[in-house]
């Protein structure tokens, strides 16, 4: 079985990510890391491979620095990687991003395409459904338990009303929740081996996407302005030096909460 896993390179630490007031885009100049939610998708792919054999391909769209995240996934144990990287792709929204990802995935013919739960810098939790529509494949999202057998994938997922169990024939698209597994840490051997694994970088034109369909030009949503969040009461932040419990009790006592 061939499994493709979509991973995103995101600015490290959500609270430090900032939008550049000039370009109105996410500031991607700082340190980046693999979207933590996507490591659960990588882990699930590796487990499936360990159980039934097959190969795991990492697919990502992002700047050249996204190589770091791709390599992290390879170090975890994935077999190869495909990075879509192109100046013209900067500023892509959902429509433009999924056009490119779907074009890349189309050529790979994976039996299963896995997504993470959400990207920590956009919190969309939507991408997979758009990709599935473009690939014309069934989709199951928010999956907390996954099983593949007999050419079918079964996923259990939580909704507002309880738990659904959904089944689909392969090839299929599945997005997993962060409760599905505990992602492994790359071993030293994995890290050393990652460099020599096959890694391709493709441009938009190599995927047959013309520049009008990518980046800001290919996007249908715009950022018009940035505002400060509404002011809220003062946050007190303390670091535990052994006395945190006392400080919490004092704080609660002052407010008559204890």
């Amino acid at each position, binding site marked *: 079985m061939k499994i493709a896993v979509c991973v995103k390179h995101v600015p490290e630490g*959500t*609270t430090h990510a900032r939008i550049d007031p000039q370009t109105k885009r996410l500031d991607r100049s700082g340190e980046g890391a693999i979207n933590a939610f996507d490591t659960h998708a990588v882990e699930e792919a590796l487990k499936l491979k360990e159980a039934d054999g097959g190969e795991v391909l990492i697919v990502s769209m992002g700047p050249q620095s996204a190589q770091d995240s791709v390599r992290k996934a390879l170090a975890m144990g994935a077999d190869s990687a495909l990075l879509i990287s192109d100046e013209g792709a900067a500023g892509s929204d959902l*429509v433009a991003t999924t056009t490119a990802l779907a074009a890349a995935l189309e050529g790979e013919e994976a039996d299963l395409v896995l997504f993470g739960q959400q990207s920590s810098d956009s919190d969309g939790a939507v991408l997979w459904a758009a990709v599935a529509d473009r690939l014309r494949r069934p989709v199951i*999202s928010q999956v907390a338990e996954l099983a593949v057998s007999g050419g079918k994938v079964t996923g259990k997922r939580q909704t507002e*009303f309880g738990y659904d169990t959904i089944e689909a024939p392969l090839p299929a698209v599945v997005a997993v929740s962060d409760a599905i597994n505990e992602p492994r840490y790359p071993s030293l051997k994995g890290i050393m081996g990652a460099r020599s694994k096959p890694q391709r970088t493709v441009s938009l034109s190599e995927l047959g996407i013309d520049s009008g369909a990518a980046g800001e030009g290919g996007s249908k949503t715009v950022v018009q302005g*940035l505002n*400060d969040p509404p002011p809220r009461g003062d946050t007190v932040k303390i670091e*535990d030096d052994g006395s945190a419990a006392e*400080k919490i009790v004092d704080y609660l006592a002052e407010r008559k909460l204890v």
Partner: protein
Amino acid sequence: MATLVFLEHHQGELLKPSLGVLSKAAELDGDVAGVVLGSGVKEVASGAGAYGAGKVYVADRTELERPLPQPRVDALAKLFQEQDFDTVLFAASVLSADVAAGLSARLGAGLNWDLTDLVQENGNLVGKRPALGDSVYVDVGWSAEPRLALIRAGTFEPKQTDGEAEVEEFDVEFEDFSLQATMVEQAHAESEGPSIEDADVIVAGGRGLGSPDNFKLVEELAQALGGAVAATRAVVDAGWYPYATQVGQTGKTVSPKLYVACGISGAIQHKVGMQSAGTIVAINKDPNAPIFEFCDLGVVGDLHEIVPKLTELVRSRKR
């Protein structure tokens, strides 16, 4: 504007978040219609008139009986061929997020998500979107029509009017791939278990507890404070704690006087269920955890050290 609102329903009732979005749409300029997709839903659909829909489009098909997204994308795409809408609004849910994103791809239409308001500025529709853990409020728009938007759960309250809606059925052709995913089982949440909605004090545990056994740390603190225990989706989905105690988008919405979050990162989908708590105390070992952006007292440290001490101190105050 010609706005279409996707009306989600469950067990024969239109859902409150959808009706809230419908009421909001009715306040904007232009015509507002609703769309109800399902099996045996004509009756349900007519109820939308009382929340501002002039017309409700209905596709009544067995293929639409189960709450799966892809056949709904087919239905909405079909409706688009027949009617002129420039805007489609969805109240965010597990189902509607997938429907909205699928429709975005099908129509090549821009989708903005997680909106907490919609306003008209100089004739243009602008969405308000808190982003990056709500640390910046972004004004988002669309460069072309149709415009699609997902509204954050719990944003708009339904407002009842004395209006009536005309119900119009339409026909759907389904794509083969849209019918490939099938519902094997729908297990409805057990309603038993402790009720957390009325608690004045809630102590909540997340994945930072490290193991299901460690929930006893949270339970003991809750007991000392005279409160209830809550959990995040991550630990509920992992089977550490019952679904009935989950707070957030797909769980309960609570507003206790005190909410103590132990080992919880503070994801948006958790925040929407507890942000109206009076005082929020967070204990987390990661100084960058998003929860520190919206708590009142943030404690950076190891919950395994802090929580037992805290429980002991609270107990000794009472003695």
